[in-house]
């Protein structure tokens, strides 16, 4: 297998009861690539992302991340997930811990780093996402944008090989979206492999190496943003984009 392929999804299917959400998805992500997944709500893009770290168990198909076949019953998911960072729409910070503790807890419990080492790394990462002097703040004391940046730092602390962003800015007030997108953009520029489910067309256009348009549980079209966003071939892509961009 090509060692530069970080995520490889083959014929992925997912049903919730009678609801067939994903209908045969094939997708490969190269190391350092930024892939944005766009599409109307209910198109299955979030479910697809959640299958990449097995928060959802696929009904059929294979997911291979960093050479580990996650859909294989013998695969150690905890070990695999430690290499896959995930950022959620609702941040999901641990409310009973400070920002620093949020970034430290998995370093300590999963990677078994020493307290000092974890704290040094956490402090550095919080500074990197633009949060200085917020080490001891609890999530409730932070704005949505600050919380999401802590969540990004928390994921980065595990030195992930790939980062998944599940509508990371959708729950934010408009004036707070920019600061989070900026952090994501700088991550992309540093060469992080990223799979981004987003409604931010500007971000997709400016940062993505490849844009994937999904509808009805299938990939309708994909390619560089200059093609998919600026000159879509498929009728459904055009209809979706015109409804998003004309708002």
């Amino acid at each position: 297998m090509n060692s530069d392929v970080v995520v490889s999804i083959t014929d992925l299917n997912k049903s919730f009861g009678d609801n067939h959400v994903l209908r045969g998805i094939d997708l490969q992500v190269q190391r350092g690539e930024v892939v944005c997944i766009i599409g109307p709500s209910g198109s299955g893009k979030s479910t697809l992302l959640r299958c990449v770290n097995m928060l959802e168990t696929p009904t059929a198909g294979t997911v291979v991340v960093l050479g580990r076949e996650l859909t294989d019953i013998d695969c150690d998911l905890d070990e695999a997930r430690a290499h896959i960072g995930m950022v959620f729409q609702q941040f999901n910070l641990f409310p009973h811990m400070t920002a620093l503790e949020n970034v430290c807890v998995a370093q300590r419990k999963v990677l078994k780093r020493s307290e000092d080492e974890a704290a040094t790394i956490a402090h550095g990462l919080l500074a990197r996402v633009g949060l200085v002097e917020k080490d001891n703040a609890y999530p409730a004391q932070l704005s949505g944008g600050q919380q999401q940046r802590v969540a990004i730092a928390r994921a980065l602390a595990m030195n992930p090989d790939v980062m998944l962003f599940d509508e990371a800015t959708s729950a934010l007030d408009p004036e707070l979206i920019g600061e989070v997108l900026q952090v994501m953009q700088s991550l992309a520029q540093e060469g992080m492999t990223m799979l981004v489910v987003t409604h931010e067309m500007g971000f997709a256009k400016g940062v993505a190496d490849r844009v994937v348009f999904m509808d009805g549980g299938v990939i309708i079209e994909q390619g560089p943003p200059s093609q998919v966003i600026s000159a879509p071939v498929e009728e459904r892509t055009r209809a979706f984009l015109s409804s998003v961009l004309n708002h």
Partner: protein
Amino acid sequence: MAISKRKKAQYRRITVYVLSVIALLAMVLVVDWGRLQSAMFQWDIVVEQFPDILTSAAKNTIIFTILGFAGGLSFGLLFALMRLSTIRPYRWFAATYIEIFRGIPLLVTLLILGFGIPIATGWRWPNPYLQGAVPLALVASAYMAETIRAGIEAVPKGQMEAARSLGMSYSRAMITIIIPQALRIIVPPLTNEFVLLIKDTSLISVLGVTAGTRDLARFGRDGVNHTANATPLIVAGLVYLAMTVPLTQLVAWMERREKAASR
């Protein structure tokens, strides 16, 4: 002109106050206070209860309560986790256990485990404290399991997802992330459970315990037999109140604080 709604409500309030005062006055006048005091609150008998009622009886009540609570909490947590397990037999076992022990009165459970099992098997309880505390803990664990389960389920699903996506195992995520948050939610109901347990220990007195392990209720009853007067029971009741009221007030305070914090 018809009376307005607000005026009517005002009259109703005033009437309730007036009736309350009349009822209170009637009680003060009708009740034979002298007789009541001689039968239920003779001061020399009150004094006689001390210090044993505190150093022995109340101490035993507290020992039974703490044993029952500790056992109930440990098994309650276990059964709560089994109820939430993805493994069906665990869920079935926990659900059946909870139904059985919540469905049988504590008194009956105490008699079955305290007397029935020893008679049936010839096995003897090694310790009179355990004879009372184990059935208490088994019943308490059924109630606490439901409280703890509700607390765990009240923690948003995203917390477990975030923890798992960082590579934590299910049990690691439970211990580090979920249970600490659930505890905050369940401390008030668990404190209420503690108050219920304090009172439920009074049922242990049916097991005919030794003089040294008598609880407050048994101590009061024996006092009644001894003095032919109800005063020891009244004193026992007051000692129960001295233990329970601070705790219920604590719960009320915690709930007020929680309400203020969530605003």
